[in-house]
């Protein structure tokens, strides 16, 4: 199977046109394979969760019943991004599998919404939230190494509890960031090829080869996002992850879940103040 569809330009050059649409099915199959393998792993192989105890548990008494995890702005960003991402995927790929409709209009509008929400998120996360909380640190890598060693029966200390985000979350964020940015940037340029009313159309902005590579990259990250989104939705509805999913809806997670999964030193929640009527405590936000 060829991964790229090639075309011959009017000048006789062989130029890439777009990715082979068969990759859509490969991405979908990969998404389902991930779900099956992960479900089997959890069901059959995975050892029960055990974390190293830390002295920080002493602060548990000061932890509020509802631990704030995501600000309203962060939650709004997440769901707007999710809606625009799903719209983008459906409008991009349904026509390729035979469902015909006026997809270009909805696609570029959803792309604009996604791009604006990404820009907002970059500013919001950089200046108003704890920027580094979503990036893997040394502790994450050390704990991951220990978990892997213990899984294979090698001697290793128990891994510590998670910071605000488990390493898997951080890695997923990195993957979605790279693919999302690639799709958004190439998509913005591709809007120069169609009539949108936003940009003056200029199909000569790049050479045929550059345009072709851009379409291929846009397509590759697009089909990659199919698998990534499938994996994300699957994780979001897994029973053991539901408290995290709920926190993306309501903004908070329970005190028990927080203490069970998270390291109170790496993700510190300030003690509940006496005038807090809803039981929320100040937090570093997202």
């Amino acid at each position: 199977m060829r991964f790229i569809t090639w075309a011959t330009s009017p000048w006789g050059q062989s130029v890439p046109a777009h990715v082979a649409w068969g990759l859509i099915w490969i991405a979908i199959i990969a998404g389902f394979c991930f779900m099956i393998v992960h479900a089997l792993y959890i069901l059959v192989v995975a050892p029960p969760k055990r974390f190293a105890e830390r002295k920080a548990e002493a602060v548990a008494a000061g932890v509020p019943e509802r631990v704030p995890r995501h600000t309203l702005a962060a939650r709004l960003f997440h769901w707007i991004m999710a809606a625009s991402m799903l719209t983008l995927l459906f409008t991009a790929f349904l026509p390729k599998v035979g469902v015909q409709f006026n997809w270009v209009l909805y696609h570029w509008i959803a792309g604009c919404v996604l791009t604006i929400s990404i820009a907002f998120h970059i500013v919001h996360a950089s200046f108003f939230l704890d920027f580094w909380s979503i990036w893997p640190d040394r502790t994450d890598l050390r704990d991951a190494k220990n978990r892997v060693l213990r899984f294979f029966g090698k001697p290793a200390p128990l891994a510590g509890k998670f910071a605000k985000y488990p390493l898997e979350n951080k890695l997923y964020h990195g993957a979605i960031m790279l693919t999302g940015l690639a799709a958004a940037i190439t998509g913005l340029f591709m809007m120069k090829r169609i009539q949108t009313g936003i940009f003056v159309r200029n199909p000569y902005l790049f050479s045929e080869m550059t345009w072709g590579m851009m379409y291929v990259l846009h397509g590759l990250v697009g089909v990659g996002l199919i698998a990534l989104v499938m994996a994300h939705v699957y994780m979001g509805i897994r029973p053991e992850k539901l408290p995290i999913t709920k926190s993306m809806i309501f903004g908070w997670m329970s005190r028990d879940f927080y203490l069970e999964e998270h390291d109170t030193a790496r993700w510190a929640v300030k003690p509940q103040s006496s005038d807090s009527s809803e039981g929320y405590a100040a937090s570093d936000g997202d």
Partner: protein
Amino acid sequence: MAVFRDVMPAFDLLQPGSAAEAQQLLEQNGADAWVMAGGLDSFDWLKDRIKKPKVLVDLSGVDELKGIRVSANGVEIGAMTTLTEIANHAEIKRNYGVLSQAVELVASPQIRNQGTLGGNVSQDVRCWYYRGGWPCYRAGGDICYADTPVGRNREHAIFGADRCVAVHPSDSVPALIALDAQFVVQTAKGERVVDAEDYFVGPETDITRLNMLGPGDLLTAIRIPAAWAGAKFYFEKVRDRNVWDFPLMNVASATRLSGSGDIEQMRIAVNAVSPRPMRLKAVEDAVRGKPANAETGEMAGKMAVQGAVPLQFNAYKIPLMRNLVKRAIVGAGPGGREAA
């Protein structure tokens, strides 16, 4: 490496004897099959080696798809009926003259002898970039070569462009829309009958085809209801070469006048301005109850071109369309001439 375009690519030639057999063959071969009616559009594609079907289903031997059947409900024209037969048919000339006028202006007598109504309404666009085999949007690529600052787009769309700016090139279609015709399509799930304007698909929906026919579908007939029989008709085609050319634009209308000469009912359609033939519903509504005169025509013409977006070299189509619509209105009047 040189590209040889002097012989057709190899394909299996299938020659069904009935419409049911033809539909079955199309269904069996799906997207690998190419339907050939008169062959005038098909042979261009095949000899240029741009379309390379594995199977060609030749409908020339399907007699049930040929002929014109007249009944009290109107006329049913088989999809394989030649344009010459339609142009010369007494009943069509008498009661549905706009269609005979339209098909009589298609290409040349030789082409009309071979060309069929089904083929004429289902032909592909005439954009030379697309037909030249370049990887444009319609050909599955990601650019429109005509819609560029130096692209040759004099004949292209002023309405309905969505990436592709090619226009529908048929002369018979606006007449069929004016007559409120219905298209009969055999599909794997049975027969579908759709209104003429619904048979066509714009690039916003599917950029790779001009009509609703998918793999396995077969247009079998076109039915013209008696509702517009004997109405006042108008057809006009503007082209570069009057002896033989595709339309730069054409207009067709069917009008019923009241006793006082006002427009009681009208259907009007324009083609070669958009990837889909355009029925001008707003104009039909606006002229109802008004006299079919120059003033109404002027108003209708202005209304018709609202929203037009010209390309680099086809702005002339806006005044052309305005005038054609005006002439169609005036032509529908008591003293109007049924232009051609």
